[in-house]
């Protein structure tokens, strides 16, 4: 295998986002929660703008809006004032406080400040009149938005989960997936007769209905009462192969409350979805419901119908590590050659996970690059003659340069409509992805040909 070239010092067109962004997204998936950034005002505003452009939904992120004097003397007063203001105006059930590079560097001790704040609130705390406060350290200079996302999920479990009563519920930590994916996961659990505690759940909060009022906090999200009893669930399922190798919320709940953890890959494509359904079968002790078996059957039928359009096509796949692992698992099973699997993340487990999902189909593991930006990705990919890109919107400039289709998945989708409704997971998601990939290749063939094919 080719060794990585000498790394560049500079980053050009990053293929990752910053850590607090991930934390804000995760917090948005918890019922009644206002994400709160302890830092300067710009961070919150930039992230809101970035998230809104994808979901086309309100995304209020509060900020402690630190100014110069706070950078010198510490941000404690502003953090407390900000929390109070959010309590007063938003009626939050939970405030998810994430730090930023500024407050991590000036050394604000957020857990200590939060403890002091609770004490000052005194009576109100005991009467539960003030919201729960969850804090997470997310210095932007270490890790990507995915580490921020997972750190927030873990912080929520750490600071809220308890064992109040044993239940038949299943904790499901889906990772960062689309609202459409989350709605589908809920449907699957329901069809299995399983009560799921999905943490976080962005399905309503970032893809809500038209409303008569501007909801201060959008309805939906994981109910806090359910999180408080995650320790009583019968099992935890956590999606993501690279994730499973780190300290996760699922592991914490297992260690602290003895809830058995099942770590599976992000269920994208047939085999990874089979793995997911198998876990659900084991947990529930029933076979996969007929509806889903039928979908699986139709998917295989579609694999056959579509294989000639996609077979041996050379694809570059990029994005968050676990998403790329899932997509790669899917692409290799329909006969596409992933010539490069790339991520801006650097968990250290990316290559291994790609190996795991490709080795029973491919003789050689595809080229894997972690910690890349789009400059390195392009440099690498240019030697590989890709015919297809699979990833988020930020790779569009390469698709344009190389005149090849980009099948948009994941986050962010800033140059197309409906990013929040893209389905990636499960048999149904694989069906959607397959249809879109086949059609992208057909469209390209049709557009490039002078013939004007009427049948293709």
């Amino acid at each position, binding site marked *: 295998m080719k060794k990585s070239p000498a790394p560049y010092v500079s980053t050009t067109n*990053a293929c990752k986002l910053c850590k607090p962004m991930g934390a804000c997204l995760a917090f948005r998936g918890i019922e009644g929660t206002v994400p709160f950034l302890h830092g300067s005002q*710009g961070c919150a505003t930039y992230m809101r703008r970035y998230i809104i452009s994808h979901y086309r939904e309100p995304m*209020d*992120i509060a900020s402690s809006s630190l*100014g110069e004097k706070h950078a010198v003397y510490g941000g404690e007063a*502003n953090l407390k004032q900000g929390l109070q203001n959010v309590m007063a*105006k938003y009626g939050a059930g939970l405030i998810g406080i994430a730090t930023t590079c500024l407050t991590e560097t000036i050394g604000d001790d957020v857990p200590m400040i939060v403890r002091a704040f609770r004490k000052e609130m005194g009576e109100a705390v005991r009467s539960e009149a003030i919201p729960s406060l969850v804090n997470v350290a997310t*210095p932007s200079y270490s890790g990507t938005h995915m580490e921020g996302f997972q750190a927030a999920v873990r912080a929520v479990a750490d600071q809220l989960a308890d064992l109040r009563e044993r239940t038949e519920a299943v904790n499901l930590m889906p990772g960062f997936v689309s609202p459409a994916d989350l709605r589908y996961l809920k449907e699957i659990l329901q069809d299995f007769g399983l009560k799921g505690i999905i943490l976080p759940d962005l399905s309503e909060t970032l893809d809500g209905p038209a409303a008569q009022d501007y909801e201060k906090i959008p309805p939906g999200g994981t109910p806090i009462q359910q999180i408080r009893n995650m320790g009583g669930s019968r099992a935890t399922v956590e999606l993501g192969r690279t994730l499973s190798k780190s300290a996760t919320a699922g592991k914490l709940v297992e260690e602290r409350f003895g809830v058995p953890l099942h770590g599976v890959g992000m269920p994208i494509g047939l085999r990874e979805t089979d793995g997911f359904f198998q876990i659900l079968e084991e947990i529930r002790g029933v076979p996969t419901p007929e509806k889903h078996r039928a979908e699986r059957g139709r998917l295989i039928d579609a694999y056959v119908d579509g294989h000639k359009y996609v077979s041996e096509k050379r694809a570059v796949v990029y994005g968050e590590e676990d998403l790329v692992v899932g997509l790669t698992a899917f692409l290799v099973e329909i006969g596409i050659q992933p010539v490069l699997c790339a991520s801006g993340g650097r968990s250290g487990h990316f290559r291994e996970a790609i190996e795991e999902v490709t080795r029973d189909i491919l003789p050689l593991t595809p080229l894997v690059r972690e910690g890349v930006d789009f400059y390195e990705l392009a440099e690498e990919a240019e030697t590989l003659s890709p015919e297809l890109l699979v990833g988020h919107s930020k790779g569009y400039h390469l698709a344009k340069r190389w005149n090849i289709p980009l099948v948009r998945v994941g986050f962010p989708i800033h140059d197309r409509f409906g990013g929040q409704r893209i389905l990636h997971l499960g048999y149904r998601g694989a069906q959607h992805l397959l249809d879109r990939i086949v059609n992208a290749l057909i469209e390209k063939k049709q557009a490039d040909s002078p013939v004007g094919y009427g049948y293709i």
Partner: protein
Amino acid sequence: MNTDHSVIFQERKDQIHRKGEEPFEISCNKESLAGAVSQRACVFCGSRVVLYPIADALHLVHGPIGCAAYTWDIRGALSSGPELHRLSFSTDLQEKDVIFGGEEKLTRALVELIDRHSPNAAFVYSTCIVGIIGDDLESVCKRVSGEKGIPVIPVQSEGFKGNKREGYHAACNAMFRLIGTGDTTGISPLSVNILGDFNLAGEIWIIQEYYRRMGIETVANVTGDGRVDDLRRAHGAALNVVQCSGATMDLAKMMQEAFGIPFQRVSYFGVEDMAESLYAVARFFGDRDPGIMARTQALVKEELSILYPQLQKYRKALSGKKAAIYVGGAFKAFSLVKAFRLLGMQVVLVGSQTGTEEDYQELHEITDDGTIIVDDSNPLELSSFLKEKDVDVFVGGVKERPIAYKLGVGFCDHNHERKEPLEGFIGMLNFAKEIHASVVSPVWRFVPRKTAGRRG
């Protein structure tokens, strides 16, 4: 319907004025209130938006990845030539850089990128964290400039050092270092620099063409479709025409002081302001070119004779509708108020992120009784005002869009995501078309705000 006053913070009451209810007074230019979810960004944002359209310069963000990632090609500023500005460069600071200092990484990144792209100058943006760890940007820039033979200019844009306004100032300071370093031979006595237009959707080309028809040479664009060499010789222009006064007025003042170049405030939005801007410039050059006023009048007449007949149908459909405006700089709001008036519409809410007392005074003068004037607002206030005033269309940027849409109110993006020019006479037509397209859409009849009470 009344505004829900419970959404308004006590601390913010004097930043909201209702015309006619009491004598005009408004508090502004304050730090944003912690926890209030301000729509403002930061100092870095201010610098970045002003400088980034300089297309042949390298724009290196010294900081963790977020600041660069969220501003990658963010505003769609167009270039007629090089497009280096559309790439997102970062030093992507990591934990060890924060501990040991980022100067070495910055130096190496600069050298690497300058060697790779051969830019005509480099701007190095400071971010929050750089202000804390104390990297000496000035000395790094000086050293690399000496080594590479191009101007390498630090931009003191630490995010926490104020709001966007301070960022504008830092950008002007940075640009001012270039001005006066180029050869001004051959510049026409009838010449201007266009300040405060960023060529979103190609608008500066429209304005340049007007000036060309008047017989005026454009020396430098500041900064839309901007070039380093043009900035270097900008001191050879006879007049600075300054739009978006917040962003580039500081530069105009510096140039007046250093080079004796007078400036003229202009606005290219709406018919009235567009025509008056051209006349003001014509008056300035009247002594040098007695024919210029006649040419300008002919130009305006010609443009209006094309525009007015086309505007009529929009005016007819929009007359009596109610509009709300919330933009970054108040200056744009003046023109928008007039533009809406031309369409027969009534502005019932107008606000800005960074207006000054004089700005709000002017807004107070040009708006009707009952209009809400607001400084540094937030989603809860804005949504409440939109409902109270039963607004038909809201003009703002990406962050304001979901506020309008959730409530079932039309919207016009007057910032980052516009793809059709809104400046110039043609811009007025595009603006009318866009407002019309949103307001007359049949979708509003289905939204809860309109159907509430009609069906269950």
